[in-house]
């Protein structure tokens, strides 16, 4: 059943406060157990042999010498997995195709990127497993490769997939190509719109792939027993989705696989996909022992994530008074080795912050010889928004209109028709713009070589399948079993707070636990900022189910009609106008006697949450540019965002701060660097430069609360919006500081210095 639960305004005791997270003490004492911290008796260590080539046909694989090495207990290759036909399923950001999933976890006909798995070994120790990898002989026929998205779209580019014919074009193409899919989102008439424009600006942008950069490398441990059952402990954003995928690629019954989501050391979209899990199960099946596999950081960079690199073209027209009349964009996204990037979502949110009559966005999904992209926090949106918000900034500058004012003149609001589909319900975009404009940081004085930039972001947010159970314990406490992984933001605390609010008991009397896949019905992955929205809705409904059962119990014990019992302040008491007087029963009293009055009480909910509320944010970035070296320093950074309702404001701020700094890293220095040979040159944290503490300032957070009408507490979801605007805000701030527009990401010192010199050479004001 699809479910929406309407928002009710009511006095709150727990929601909106800042209690400590239930996983906190374990995390500050080193007790928290992440996947790599699990061990099983008799376990083997598994390691993966990876392709050293960007593109090659596998002519043969000889594992005999590895198998003969003492201590090696199993070796698996493509021959140990069934081939899969094209079949789609939902998985986090994107629809996945099992034909590709099985080829990505273990190469079949060809290797398609540096780092593509070719074989896996399980041995008594890591050092034996590593030595065994060196004994596997793979014969490759090296093929020409293509890394760049624009190059890959050319007709004579090296072809990754001989059977890939562009989807979404008519007539159907006769020749295969790297262009997997073309999509067009449109509304109104561009010709009309550009005719009405007084000012038209057309610009091109390029971005490099960036990695989610979670600090915990992928890890899992699996055991397969002789009766055909498998158990897996892994770091994942969605253990039910992993179970589904494992069942498919290993041709097992879902009921025979049990997955436990361990404490997760960061994901950000990058832990939505199976990598080592099927290999560990296959190795365990072959060796009859548990197999533990932990990726190295180098493997994480070479073979997981990243997000797309892209080429983006934006053309905007507007009137003299700043009303946008036409908006056109082309987004060319790298999908990596297999089709399916975030280009569709990027297309759908490129212009969606604005109320526009005439829009067209063309999206291209392009396969290249790089690791298959994974979701990364608001997948694709930062890339599209970098281009769009830069051009809007340029418009404001040319028209002499304040950049926030220009955005206010075009801002989407309730009732705005989007170009991708629905009309907006109540949204808080305009509120964020007003609050940003009024913020003291918007007027803070700027020093020499300093500048200020504005940019905005929008994300859809999602609901989807969610299950939850709430057990009322015999002492009057409650245990909440959740199926949505707490991907770090603190959703366990938020759920427990909402449940405590519903039950009318203290927050610390509710213990939230993430159940394994045997504990609950299906739960979709924690993605799309759905954790607190959908998980919260399920938890609230489980609590309401338990309350309903407790009311019934009170009615039976007190021998009054059900309608006479109201639930308030943690007890069943006479309903106003209910017609019966009786001694109220507290939750503790009900719980204590539950066994003898009809059995223990638990609430359940199994829903498909609909009604997610779109989120909007406005960012103010202040930068200082060293004109002689091109170094950009972030001086101040402010986020104003509508979250609907902040259940736990400190954890909402945490999402803003973390998302902003990821966005700052993306803007300034993060990038995948490939050599001419198609091999990744910076697979480590030394040369893949995520921000360190001394690179960033404090982040000012302003929480705006325009309730989502479709959630009992008004939650929209908040985790993804913060990463969308930083790239554009920083680029706009650089322009404001030194009069140079940066349209290449990352805005690293060599690129910035080059742009400064080019501008000086062109006679621009520097």
């Amino acid at each position: 059943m699809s479910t929406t639960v309407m928002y009710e305004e009511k006095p709150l005791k727990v929601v909106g406060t800042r209690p400590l997270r239930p996983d906190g003490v374990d995390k500050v004492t080193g007790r928290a157990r992440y996947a790599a911290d699990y061990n099983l008796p008799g376990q083997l260590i598994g390691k993966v042999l990876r392709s050293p080539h960007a593109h090659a046909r596998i002519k043969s694989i000889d594992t005999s010498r590895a198998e003969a090495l003492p201590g090696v207990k199993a070796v698996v290759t493509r021959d140990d997995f069934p081939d899969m036909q094209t079949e789609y399923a939902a998985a986090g950001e994107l629809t996945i195709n099992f034909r590709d999933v099985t080829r990505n976890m273990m190469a079949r006909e060809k290797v398609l990127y540096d780092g593509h798995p070719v074989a896996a070994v399980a041995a008594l120790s890591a050092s034996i497993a590593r030595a065994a990898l060196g004994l596997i002989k793979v014969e490759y026929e090296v093929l020409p490769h293509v890394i760049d998205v624009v190059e890959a779209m050319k007709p004579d580019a090296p072809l990754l997939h001989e059977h890939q014919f562009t989807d979404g074009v008519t007539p159907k193409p006769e020749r295969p190509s790297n262009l997997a899919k073309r999509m067009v989102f449109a509304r109104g008439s561009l010709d009309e719109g550009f005719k009405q424009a007084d000012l038209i600006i057309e610009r091109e942008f390029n971005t490099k792939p960036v990695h989610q950069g979670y600090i915990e490398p992928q890890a899992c441990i699996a055991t397969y027993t002789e009766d055909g059952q498998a158990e897996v402990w892994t770091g994942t954003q969605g253990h039910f989705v992993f179970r589904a995928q494992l069942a498919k690629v290993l041709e097992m019954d879902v009921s025979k696989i049990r997955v436990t989501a361990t404490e997760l050391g960061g994901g950000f979209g990058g832990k939505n996909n199976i990598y080592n899990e099927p290999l560990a199960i296959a190795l365990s099946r072959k060796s009859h022992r548990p197999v533990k596999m932990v990726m190295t950081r180098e493997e994480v960079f070479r073979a997981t994530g990243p997000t797309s690199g892209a080429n983006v073209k934006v053309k905007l027209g507007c009137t003299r008074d700043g009303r946008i009349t036409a908006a056109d964009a082309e987004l060319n996204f790298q999908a990596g080795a297999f089709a399916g990037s975030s280009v569709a979502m990027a297309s759908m949110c490129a212009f969606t912050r604005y109320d526009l009559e005439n829009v067209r966005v063309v999206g291209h999904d392009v396969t290249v010889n790089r690791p298959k992209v994974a979701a990364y926090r608001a997948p694709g949106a930062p890339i599209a928004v970098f281009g769009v918000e830069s051009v809007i900034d340029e418009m404001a500058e040319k028209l002499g209109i304040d950049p926030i004012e220009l955005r206010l003149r075009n801002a989407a609001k309730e009732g705005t028709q989007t170009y991708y589909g629905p009309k907006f319900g109540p949204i808080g975009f305009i509120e964020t713009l007003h609050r940003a404009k009024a913020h003291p940081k918007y007027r803070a004085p700027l020093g020499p070589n300093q500048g200020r930039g504005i940019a905005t972001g929008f994300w859809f947010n999602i609901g989807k399948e969610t299950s939850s159970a709430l057990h009322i314990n015999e002492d009057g406490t409650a245990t909440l079993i959740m199926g949505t992984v707490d991907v770090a933001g603190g959703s366990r605390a938020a759920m427990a707070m909402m449940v405590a609010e519903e039950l009318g008991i203290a927050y610390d009397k509710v213990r939230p636990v993430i159940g394994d896949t045997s504990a609950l019905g299906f739960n979709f992955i924690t993605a799309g900022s759905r954790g607190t929205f959908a998980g919260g809705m399920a938890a609230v409904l489980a609590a309401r189910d338990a309350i309903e059962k407790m009311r019934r119990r009170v009615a039976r014990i007190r021998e009054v009609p059900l309608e006479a019992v109201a639930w308030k302040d943690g007890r069943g008491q006479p309903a106003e106008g209910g017609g019966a007087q009786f001694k109220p029963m507290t939750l503790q009293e009900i719980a204590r006697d539950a066994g003898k009055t009809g059995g223990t009480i638990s609430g359940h909910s199994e829903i498909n949450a609909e009604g997610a509320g779109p989120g909007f944010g406005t960012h103010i970035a202040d930068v200082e540019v060293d004109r002689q070296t091109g170094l950009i320093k972030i001086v101040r950074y402010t986020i104003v965002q509508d979250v609907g309702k902040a259940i736990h404001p400190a954890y909402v701020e945490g999402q803003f701060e973390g998302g902003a700094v990821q966005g700052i890293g993306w803007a300034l220095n993060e990038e995948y660097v490939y050599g001419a040979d198609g091999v990744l040159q910076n697979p480590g944290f030394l040369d893949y430069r995520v921000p360190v503490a001394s690179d960033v300032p404090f982040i000012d957070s302003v929480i705006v609360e325009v309730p989502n009408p479709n959630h009992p507490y008004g939650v929209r979801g908040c985790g993804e919006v913060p990463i969308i605007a930083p790239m554009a805000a920083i680029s706009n701030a650089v322009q404001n500081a030194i009069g140079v527009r940066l349209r290449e990401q990352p805005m690293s010192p060599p690129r910035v210095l080059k742009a400064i010199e080019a501008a000086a050479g062109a006679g621009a004001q520097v």
Partner: protein
Amino acid sequence: MGKHRVMATVNGDAVEFLCETGQTLLEALRDELQLSGTKEGCGTGDCGACSVMLDGRLVCSCLVLGVEAQGKTIHTIEGMAKGEQLHPLQRKFLEHAALQCGICTPGMLISARALLERNPDPTEEQVRYGLAGNLCRCTGYHKIVEAVLDAAREMRGA
């Protein structure tokens, strides 16, 4: 030649373990001594998740060999609280919401304690540089820096 037999003091306890020459102190702590609070994020000294104190020096345990621990004194996250009493830094990290996924937290706390031992009254900038060897991808460092400054205040009795 077989494995090395190493005797060391970890969090005040005399311990003994066996290791190969190539095994790191991090591997010895996690796999031989079951002290898995120290984390591996990179294995190359670039993320700080494996930070421990070795004879009073802050080090990345992934860049120390297990065999070098012979006769040495090591402090890890597991020894930071004294019984029920959390270290002020641990408490402030909780109160300030200075952790999310928690994978960097043990190393971050060890580094923060080392910082405050050298400099009990650091500025914001000194805290940021003092923790620059510890990557955190979740928090943007904001609440971590606040928590360390607040803990420093409390520890100084200010």
